């Protein structure tokens, strides 16, 4: 029995953390800064929510059923992303592709519904130019949608990298960062549907 196994190591003496830890921590800091940026858009929206300038209000524009479907799409996409992470952890290539495809499909469905909602609003004249409320709405929700679009592109690239390179260290770290990004987007959507659609859509 060697002593080094029995005695727990002091974390401060354990040497530098593995790269996986450092990369995850760095990406977590980036995500928090992204959330701080979103908080500015949320503050703008909250200040301008009543400034409709005689134009349509949130209660007239928002369809709660569509928002509920969007929310379900993004939540199950987040869950599928978790399943993909587990498949990556088990080094199961087929399950990883399956999880990735489900994540992508549900994310794309969310984006499609959101773009359809935007198109419907613009068609009845509720454009970003109409009022301060609509400017803030399109900035906030559009910024989240842009993040989702970038995430979908990232996911497609990661699937291609698994196909081309397999489960090597660099690919595993990128997959960890992607799953963090995707879950963080779902957290932002929770704040978004609560503040914009549920609170703003009331009578």
């Amino acid at each position, binding site marked *: 029995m060697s002593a080094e196994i029995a005695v727990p190591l002091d974390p401060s003496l354990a040497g530098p953390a593995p790269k996986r830890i450092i990369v995850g921590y760095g990406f977590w800091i980036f995500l928090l800064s992204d959330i*701080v940026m979103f908080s500015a858009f949320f503050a*703008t929206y909250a200040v301008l929510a009543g400034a409709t300038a005689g134009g349509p209000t949130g209660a007239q524009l928002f369809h709660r059923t569509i928002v509920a479907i969007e929310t*379900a799409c993004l939540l199950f996409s987040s869950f599928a992303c978790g399943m993909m992470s587990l498949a990556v952890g088990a080094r199961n290539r087929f399950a990883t592709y399956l999880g990735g495809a489900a994540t992508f499909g549900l994310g794309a469905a969310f984006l499609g519904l959101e773009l359809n909602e935007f198109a419907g609003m613009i068609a009845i004249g509720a454009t970003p130019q109409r009022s301060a409320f609509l400017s803030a709405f399109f900035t906030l929700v559009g910024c989240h949608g842009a993040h989702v679009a970038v995430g979908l592109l990232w996911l497609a690239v990661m699937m291609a990298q698994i196909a081309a390179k397999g489960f090597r260290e660099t690919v595993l770290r990128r997959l960890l960062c992607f799953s963090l990004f995707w879950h963080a987007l779902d957290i932002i959507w929770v704040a978004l549907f609560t503040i914009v659609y549920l609170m703003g859509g009331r009578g």
Partner: protein
Amino acid sequence: MTADTQDRAPGDDASAGDRHAATLSGLLAYLIGLGLAILLTATSFWAASTNLLWQPGVPIGLAVLAVAQMGVHLVFFLHITTGPDNTNNVLALAFGVLIVFLVVAGSLWIMANLNANMMLTPEMTNPQLQH
């Protein structure tokens, strides 16, 4: 691996070690998270739509449900916990939450204050009453 038990990256699964057991416990965590998230989301949409609740209290209830759901996502999906191996991640999160709170609450406070102080009174807008 000693390093794995000392440090944990955000998004890492709770248990390292045996791969099969890790997958099963990870699956359980994701399923619990999904169940709680569905429950909280459904409650939010129900509370916003129903007339059974006292209406002025609904926004506060919605805010509480949203914060609870964000906590569920953080713990079960992002695996940010209060364990000793997660101190750095939690500290960064706490700082982020502080900044978000300052930006949102500060903006609302200042803008509401400006709105109240810059409001024109009828005397200021009515030319007949000006001296």
